[in-house]
């Protein structure tokens, strides 16, 4: 049997969850033995080149590009995992939910205390840019997600144990200390 293929991405996240993947330390060598990476920041493959077994999503969806990437993951991956608080519930980017979009944009580009150089009050509107969504969405409110691994970031042990369980088919043990929301 060929190795399971893995893909990962970070949507509206901070890459902290990816850092936590790296936090499995020397087990990463075993991981390379166990799986093959496809589209992922880990190997810098930009597009799917073959069907993928497991897709790992960090971050929720705050713009149209996030939605597009998430949908392509759903299309190309057999199993999708929401990794971390942002993917699961929007996380810190979702703090803007409930604030009118005009206010958010005004704060970011016109009126905010750190805005100094945008004297012409230009709002980014180039056609190539992703479009901002009305709020930040958890991934499972856009596509079907199969598994959820909470944490900010999810503990490396949780990621490792979950992946091994998925790949080997062994039951997943969840010690109290690995499932945390912070």
């Amino acid at each position, binding site marked *: 049997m060929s190795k399971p293929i893995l893909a990962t991405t970070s949507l509206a996240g901070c890459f902290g969850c990816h850092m936590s993947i790296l936090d499995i330390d020397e087990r990463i060598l075993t991981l390379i033995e166990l799986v093959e990476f496809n589209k992922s920041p880990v190997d810098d493959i930009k597009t799917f080149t073959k069907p993928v077994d497991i897709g790992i999503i960090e971050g929720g969806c705050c713009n149209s590009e996030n939605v597009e990437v998430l949908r392509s993951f759903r299309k190309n991956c057999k199993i999708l995992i929401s990794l971390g608080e942002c993917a699961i519930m929007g996380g810190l980017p979702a703090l803007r939910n409930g604030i009118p*979009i005009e206010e958010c944009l005004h704060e970011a580009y016109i009126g905010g205390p750190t805005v100094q150089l945008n004297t012409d009050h230009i709002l980014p*509107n180039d056609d190539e840019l992703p*479009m*901002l*969504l*009305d709020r930040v969405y958890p991934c499972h409110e856009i596509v*079907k997600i199969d598994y959820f691994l909470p944490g900010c970031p999810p503990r490396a042990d949780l990621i490792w144990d979950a992946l091994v369980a998925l790949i080997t088919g062994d039951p997943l043990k969840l010690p109290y200390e690995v499932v945390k929301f912070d």
Partner: protein
Amino acid sequence: MENIVKQIIDKYGSDSNRLMDILIDIQEEFGYISRKAIELMALTLGISQVDVEQVITFYHFLSVKPRGKYAIYLNNSVVSYMFGRQAIKEAFEKEVGTTFGKVTDDGLIGLFDTACIGMNDQEPAAIINNKVFTRLTPYRVREIVRHMREGRELEELSNESYGDGKNQHPELKAMVSSNIRRKGMILSDDYKTGKVVQSILPEMSPEAVIAEIKHSHIRGRGGAGFPTGFKWEFCRRAKGEKHYVVCNADEGEPGTFKDRVILTEKPELVFEGMAVAGYAIGGEEGILYLRYEYRYMKDYLESVLDKMREQNFLGSKIGEIEGFDFDIRIQFGAGAYVCGEESALLESLEGKRGEPRDKPPFPVEKGYLNFPTIINNVETFATAVRIIEKGGEWFTQFGTEDSTGTKILSISGDCMFPGVYEVNWGFNVEDMLDMVGAYDVQAVQVGGPSGTLIAKDEFHRTLGYSDLSTGGSMIIFGKQRNLLKEVVLNFMEFFIDESCGSCSTCRNMPQVMHNKLLKIINGKGVKKDLTDLKEWGKILLASRCGLGQTAGNPIISSLKNFHHLYEDLIQKDKEFDEGFDLTASVKESCKFVGRVPNFNHH
């Protein structure tokens, strides 16, 4: 202003248990309850200001902001919509020049939605400064608003002839029709007020009264159906310095209005029934807890009480019975469906937010002010008089074995003759529909939104505690109605608005279920949504009171009896759809930054 507020507080003996009365008086005097008034109440009653505010903000008819010289409350129950509410709403907004939820800039007119006001047989209806305006049309709306602008008195606004029967009484003068379509032992005119307290009770011990009530097998008419005789017996046995008799006239279940008719046409029977109960349990004080929507009856009911006192049907030594002292006062709610739940009602009576109490203890042990208390429905008290007059045995000949006697139904919706019908228990739905002239019926809501929505295949079922139990609300929906969109959604909104919010379950779950129903109605539903709704609805059963436990019933019951309506709406080709719409979700931001949405890049 200060002086008036002080006088009002004084009038109720600076008693925080009478906070509801104080707040209602202030609201009516000034059209709102000001910060200054709140400060004064807090200071005088020795509570914090937020404690006063938490009561105000609980009740729909109390407000910390001015509601206008004329405050218009337009009923938003489903039957109101069925009979043209939308046109009335638009007419009001156009004429008044503001939208619902707001007051005109000059402070003259405020427009507000309100839950069922007990006028389902004459919708659309509104309450304006405690007067009820029924059968509204856009023309009448224009006229009413014009007259308000001319500064006319409220009396002059209702230029229709007054309603029928006692609605024409000088103390009542309501434009309401009683619409009595069928009479039985309660609504018939063959009882002379005072007969029981004056001629029969002198021959009976309190225990004998309870025995007779038990023998009749009458069960509570409010909907829960607890055996009345046992309730009275438990209360009589409960130890306490005082025992209270409370009449629950907070009929808030959308679609019910039979208590309105009983209280208009037969109030003496209700009050005498309370006196009988007082005699039976050994209580001297009775309280009629009347929903604020029926405030228009206040003067009339007070005059009835006065007359009964004059005739010694109330007061001391009633019927010349030594020690039989009993009197009644009326206390009002202020707009909260949940106060129809007996323990929430007690909280409200004590001047608090109407949050149901945890049981045990039950009110018969610890009720009003912690004294043993019986709480019965208006209809139950009225019926008790006839039972004592003619005997429990006589009573059991009416109705069925497990549901004895008669039941007064409030029938409304798609039928020729909406109104109240007193029938024997055991009536079946089919006969009922034929009786009221309802043709091409799609569904009947039995027992109001908290009850059951039944389809044609269940019309053979009978009304009674062991089959179709009902507090009296029957709403008929014809073939032309969109049940999910017009009816079920409206009922869910009702429960969302009326939850007291105390339980985590009832505070949140109706909204979650409502949103999911809306998603299904909008064509975004999938099969899983139906199983979710069914499962999620069960969570509500962990709520404290009947409101919470039944708040999912509109969906649960339609899902069961009208499953095909849901099936028709869900997407067959999709397993997953959480309702996300990319085009809609980028619209706002694109507009603000000034770009045309573009979904084709990459």
